[in-house]
């Protein structure tokens, strides 16, 4: 299926969980905030969150410093 990840079209396997996607695309899942179709999905819900085809996903990876 096709999703839009951080503004780019991307092909991913059907039924992929948000947790699996985040693990695939970032080396630091513990630093990520995820938004799917305009709504924040909290980290505790990633594993059970099945991504739908056409989903628009924004992932923000935080780095240290402030």
């Amino acid at each position: 299926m096709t999703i839009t990840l951080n503004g780019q079209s991307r092909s991913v396997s059907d039924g992929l969980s948000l947790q699996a996607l985040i693990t695939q695309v970032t080396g630091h899942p513990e630093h990520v905030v995820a938004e799917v179709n305009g709504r924040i999905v909290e980290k505790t819900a990633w594993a059970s969150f099945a991504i739908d085809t056409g989903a628009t996903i924004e992932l923000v990876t935080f780095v240290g410093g402030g």
Partner: protein
Amino acid sequence: MPNPFTEALSRYLTDTQLAKIRATPIGIAGAGGLGSNVAMTLVRSGFVRFEILDKDAVEASNLNRQDYTLTDIGRPKVEALKMRMLAVNPDALIVTHQAEWTRANADAFLTGLPILVEAFDQAEIKREFTEWAIGRTRCVVSGNGMAGLTGGDPTTVRQINNLYIVGDGTTSIHDGHPPLAPRVLQCAAKMAEIVLSRALEK
């Protein structure tokens, strides 16, 4: 009776603008390089209501980029920052918490505010605070990537709905990039600019 600072500010901003700014309370999570400089920039811009949280005391190693001086060393950052803000505008109303923010105690601090500034330094806490803050406020402004001597533009803004992430998104203190004033202050100034713009919008 307006103090001289407030009186002089009306040379630069209209009554309508000043009223909007004064009516917007700001929450600031973290009073380090970003938080202290955002707070000082906002108080100079006319904001008067603040709630600020930080767990630490000022150390000598903070002075290269944080808005403190030698006489502040050893004092809680939130107290030192409050004094510095009041030295600009004695009529500012500043609620402070010397406390560690965790998800467990989150609802005790920084609630009911229209704009929240995320200015923590550890990536995991930045993540956790931002995730918590979105949905609890009208606007979240977060700093992300401003360490080092050089790097990507620390004033880069990524907007996702009501979340504004300011910084290059990559340079991390965890990867050996030292926190230095030029890029930290650029990021803080951009964050303050977004807060001011959002306050004037409504």
